[in-house]
C-alpha cells in the first residue's frame, strides 16, 4: 500500500538533500514533503483499505532471533497523524525557504524528523516504533543547536535530555511488555492479558515516558524553552509533530497494551492534564517573549489531548486525536508568524517592543494570519480547535464533570493571553507609547522585506486546513472514531 512510501520517500529525500549541491536542497525538501502530503491525501480519500483496525501494510522479518519485524500498519488514528505530519512538513519547508546557512544539512535534519515521525505513526512493532521514536531526538538537537536563536544551546540540550529521559522510561515499559508478552507485535500484544500487578507499575512508567514529549505537567518545561530556541521550522515541527509523538505513543502503546493499568491511573492523568491546561495558560499570560506565549499555549492545548485520553470513552479519545491534528496545524501557524514573519523582519519578539512598531500596517498579511491563528487557537467555532475541544469536553463531561468547569476557566485564560499577545504584537496603539513614554518606531518607513510567496503559500495551506477541518470535522472523525472503538481499553473499562 502506498502510505508506507511516506517513510521511504522522506528518508531518501533527506539523504538526497544532504549529498546533492546546496542550491537544490530546499527544492528537494519541498518535493519530498509535497510527495508525502500527496500520498497521505491519497490515502485519506483513496479508501483502498479499511481504517477501523490496525491493518498491516508491510511485514518483513528483521531480527527473527529476537522476534523483531519490520511491520507497518495503518488505521484512522495513524492516518490522521500522518496527514498532519505531512502538512506541517510542507509548510515548515516553505517557511524555511530563506535558510542560507548550511541549507543541505538543515533540510537533512528536518526531513529526518519528518520521516522518523511518519515511522512512529505507522509502526506496528514495538521495537520499530521505538527506533523511529528515538531517531527523532538527535535531529531536533542539531536543528536547534545550530540554526536556533535565543539561548539555543541550553534549549537544545534540555529538550534532548528530556526526550531521552522519556525514552528511557518508555524503554523499560517496552521491555516489560516484550519480556512478559513474548512478542513485539502491537496487534498480538493488544490481545495479550498482562498480569495486573505488572500493569500497575508498567503503565505509569510507559505512559509518563511518552507524555514527556506530549508536554505533560510538570515535565513540560522543555517545551517552552525548546520552542523559543528553535528556528521557525524547528518550532513548527516540535509543535506540529513531535508533541504528537508522545500523545500517540501513550494512546497506541501504553493505553492499548495495559488497559487495567490505565484504569488505575487515569484519574491521575486527568488531574495532571487539567493542571497543565490552567497552569500553562496562566503562565502564558505573563510572558513577554511572543514565542514563550505560544510555547506555553502549546502545553495548554496538549493538556486537552491528555485530558481527552484520560476520559477513556470514545468521544473523549476521538476528540483527543482530532485535537492532536488541530493543534499541529494551529501551533505550526502561530510559530510561523512569530518566528518567520515577525522575528526575521523585526529581530525582536518582545511584546513591549513589538507594540510600538505598527506591525498591522507594516505587515498586513502577517496580521491577518495571526488574527486567524489566534481565533483558531482560542477555539472560535469554525476552526478545527473548536471542533476538537468541544468533542473532548463532551467526553470529559461524562467522566469528570468537575474537570469541565475548571477547564472552562482555563479556556478563558487561553482567550485572554491570546488576545493580549495579538494586541501587543500587531495592534499596539499610540496610547501604549504614551504610557511608556517612548516614541513609536514604525516599521513602515524602513525597508521591511515584504511577505514572500513561499510564506503566503505555507500560511494559506495551514489556514485552509484548520478551516476545512473546523467546518467539516466529520472528514477526519469518520476515520478516527472506528479506530478508537476498536481499542480494547474501552471494553476493559466500564
Amino acid at each position: 500500500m502506498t502510505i508506507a512510501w511516506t517513510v521511504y520517500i522522506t528518508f531518501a529525500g533527506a539523504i538526497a538533500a544532504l549529498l546533492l549541491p546546496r542550491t537544490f536542497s530546499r527544492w528537494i525538501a519541498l518535493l519530498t514533503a509535497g510527495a508525502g502530503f500527496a500520498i497521505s491525501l491519497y490515502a485519506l480519500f483513496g479508501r483502498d483499505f479499511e481504517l477501523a483496525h490496525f491493518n498491516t501494510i508491510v511485514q518483513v522479518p528483521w531480527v527473527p532471533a529476537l522476534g523483531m519485524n519490520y511491520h507497518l500498519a495503518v488505521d484512522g488514528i495513524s492516518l490522521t497523524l500522518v496527514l498532519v505530519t505531512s502538512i506541517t512538513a510542507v509548510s515548515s519547508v516553505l517557511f524555511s525557504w530563506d535558510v542560507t546557512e548550511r541549507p543541505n544539512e538543515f533540510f537533512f535534519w528536518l526531513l529526518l524528523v519528518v520521516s522518523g515521525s511518519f515511522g512512529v505513526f505507522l509502526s506496528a512493532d514495538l521495537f520499530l516504533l521505538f527506533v523511529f521514536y528515538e531517531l527523532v531526538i538527535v535531529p531536533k538537537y542539531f536543528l536547534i543547536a545550530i540554526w536556533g536563536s535565543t539561548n539555543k544551546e541550553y534549549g537544545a540540550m534540555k529538550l534532548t535530555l528530556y526526550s531521552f529521559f522519556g525514552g528511557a522510561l518508555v524503554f523499560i515499559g517496552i521491555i516489560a511488555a516484550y519480556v512478559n508478552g513474548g512478542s513485539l507485535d502491537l496487534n498480538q500484544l493488544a490481545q495479550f492479558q498482562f498480569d495486573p500487578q505488572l500493569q500497575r507499575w508498567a503503565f505509569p512508567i510507559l505512559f509518563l515516558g511518552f507524555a514527556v514529549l506530549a508536554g505533560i505537567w510538570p515535565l513540560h518545561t522543555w517545551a517552552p524553552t525548546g520552542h523559543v530556541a528553535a528556528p521557525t521550522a524547528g518550532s513548527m515541527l516540535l509543535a506540529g509533530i513531535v508533541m504528537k509523538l508522545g500523545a500517540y505513543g501513550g494512546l497506541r502503546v501504553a493505553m492499548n497494551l495495559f488497559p487495567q493499568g490505565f484504569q488505575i491511573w487515569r484519574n491521575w492523568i486527568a488531574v495532571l492534564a487539567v493542571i497543565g491546561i490552567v497552569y500553562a495558560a496562566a503562565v502564558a499570560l505573563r510572558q513577554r517573549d511572543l514565542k514563550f506565549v505560544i510555547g506555553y499555549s502549546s502545553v495548554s492545548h496538549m493538556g486537552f489531548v491528555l485530558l481527552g485520553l484520560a476520559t477513556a470513552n470514545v468521544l473523549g479519545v476521538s476528540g483527543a486525536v482530532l485535537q492532536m491534528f488541530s493543534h499541529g496545524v494551529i501551533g505550526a501557524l502561530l510559530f510561523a508568524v512569530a518566528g518567520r514573519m515577525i522575528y526575521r523582519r523585526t529581530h525582536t519578539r518582545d511584546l513591549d517592543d513589538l507594540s510600538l512598531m505598527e506591525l498591522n500596517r507594516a505587515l498586513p498579511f502577517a496580521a491577518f494570519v495571526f488574527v486567524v491563528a489566534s481565533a483558531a487557537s482560542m477555539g472560535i467555532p469554525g476552526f478545527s480547535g473548536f471542533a476538537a475541544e468541544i468533542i473532548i469536553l463532551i467526553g470529559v463531561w461524562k467522566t469528570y464533570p468537575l474537570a469541565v468547569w475548571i477547564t472552562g476557566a482555563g479556556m478563558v485564560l487561553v482567550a485572554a493571553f491570546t488576545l493580549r499577545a495579538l494586541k501587543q504584537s500587531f495592534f499596539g496603539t499610540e496610547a501604549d507609547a504614551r504610557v511608556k513614554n517612548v516614541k513609536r518606531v514604525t516599521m513602515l518607513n524602513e525597508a521591511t522585506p515584504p511577505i514572500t510567496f513561499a510564506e503566503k503559500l505555507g500560511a494559506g495551506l495551514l489556514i485552509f486546513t484548520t478551516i476545512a477541518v473546523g467546518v467539516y470535522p466529520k472528514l477526519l472523525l469518520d476515520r478516527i472514531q472506528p479506530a478508537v472503538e476498536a481499542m480494547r481499553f474501552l471494553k476493559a473499562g466500564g
Partner: protein
Amino acid sequence: MSYLELLKLASPEAIVTLTALLILAIGVATGRGTVVAGVSPAKPREGAAGKAASTLICTLAAAVGLITAIAAIVMLPPKADLFPGMLVISPLDSLFNVICLVLALLTILIAPRETPNYGEYIAIILLATVGLLLLVSSEELLMIFIGLELTGLSLYLLTAFDKSDIRSAEAGLKYFLFGSTASAFTLFGLSLVYGMAGSTGLAVIAERLNTQALSPLLFAGLVMTLVGFAFKVAAAPFHFWAPDAYQGAPVSSAAFIASGSKVASFVVLGKIMLVGFRPIQGSADWHAMVAGWSPALAVLAAFSILIGNLVALVQSNLRRLLAYSAVAHAGYTLLGLVAGGREGFSATLFYTTIYAFTLLGAFGVVALVRRETGGDDLQNFAGLSARSPLLAGCMAVFLLSLAGLPPLAGFFGKFYLFSVAFGAGANHGLLWLVVVALFGSLISLYYYLIVLKLIFQTPNVEKFGASPIGHSALSRVTIALAAAVVLCLGLAPQFLVARILAALP
C-alpha cells in the same frame, strides 16, 4: 597426533606469528632511526622514499598475513580439541578469532606510517593478536593465562612505543604496573581454583564444582580471578590505568587496547564464568542475592556505569573522555554476563564486538585530527565538520552509536543487553541494574552531544585553519568502513546475532 596435524590446527596462530617475524626482519633490515628519549626522531638513514617503500611493504605484508590467517580459520575443521581444552576449535572461537583478526587489520590500517620503527610497531601488534587468538580459542586456565600475558606484554610495549613523548612512557609504565599486579592476582586466583577443582580444564572444573558448596577459599579464588579480568576490560574500580593509557599511548595502540583486547577478554571471561564456574553463578536479583560471581559482576557493572559516566562528564580531552566512556561501556557489557545463560552471553558478545568497531573508528578520527591540529583536546575538534565532512559524519556515527541512538548498532546492542537482563532472574530481579544502566546512558548522551556540538556547530574554524584534512586516504577509507559496519549492524543486526547464537552451544 602428529606435528603436522598440530600445525594444521594451529595454522592461524602460526601464520600470524610468522608474519610478525617477517615484518620484524624487514623493519630491521630497512634502517631503523636511532631515537633519543625526549628528542624528536632522528632522520632515517635512507631517503624518505626508501622509508615510505619499506613501511608500505610492512603494511602490505601484515595485511596479507592477517587475511591468510582469516582464510586459514575458515578452512579449519568445524570442531576440534587439542590437548583437552588447550586449543579448541569451535564455531564460537572461529567467529571471534576472525573478529580479532579484522580488528587487528583495521588497527594496522589506521596506524600512521610515519611512526618511527614502523616495522617493529606492526610486529608487536601482530604478536598481541596471537595472544588474542590463543585467549579466545582455549578452554584451559593455563593457556588462558599465557594468552593474557602475551597480549598484556605486547600491549604494554605498544603503549610506551612513542619514545619522543613523555606521556606515552608514563602511560606505559602505569599500564604495566597495574597490569602485572592484576596478573599476579589472577594467577593466584587460578591456582586456588586449581587446588579446589584439581584440574585446569574448564569443563572438568565445572564438573567438580557441581558437588561443592561455595567455600570461602573458592570464593577467594573466584574474586582474585575476576580482578584480572576486571582490569583487562577496565571495569571500575580497576580502571585507573585506562584514562592514562588511552590518552598517552600512540592513538592506534589505544585503539587496539580498546577494541581487540577487550573483545577477547570478554569472550574468555564469559567462557570462564559461564562454562567453568557455572555451578557457582549465584544471583544478583534485588532482595534475593545469592553469593556467587553474578552479584560480584553486577556490582562491578553498576560501579563502572556510574563512575565512568559521571567522570566522563568533566573531561576536556577527547581520548580521556573515551576512556571513561569505555569504563561505562564495560559496565553495560557485563550486564549480559550477569544475566547469564546463552542469551546473556550472546548479548555481551554482540555488544563488545560492535563497541570494538565503534571505538576503533573513533580513535581513527582522533588520530587524523591529532596529526592535523597537534592535539586531541575537545577544542581541537571544533568546526571539524567544515574541515572534513566525512570525518565529522563518521564521528557522529560513532558517538551516537556509543550513546545508543538508532539506527546505529549501539542502540540495538543496548536494547538486546537490557532486555536480556530484564528478562533474566525471577520477578525481574535485575531491574535495578537496568535502571542504573539507563540512567548512565542518559548521562552519557550529554557528553557525547557536547563533543558533537563542537564538531558541527562552532564556527571559529580560523583557529586551526579551514584547510581540509587530507593525505591519508587509507585511514579515511578504514574509518568509513568502521562507520559502515556500525551503521549496517544497526540496520541489520541479524547478520551478527544469528551467527553468534548459532555458534553458542
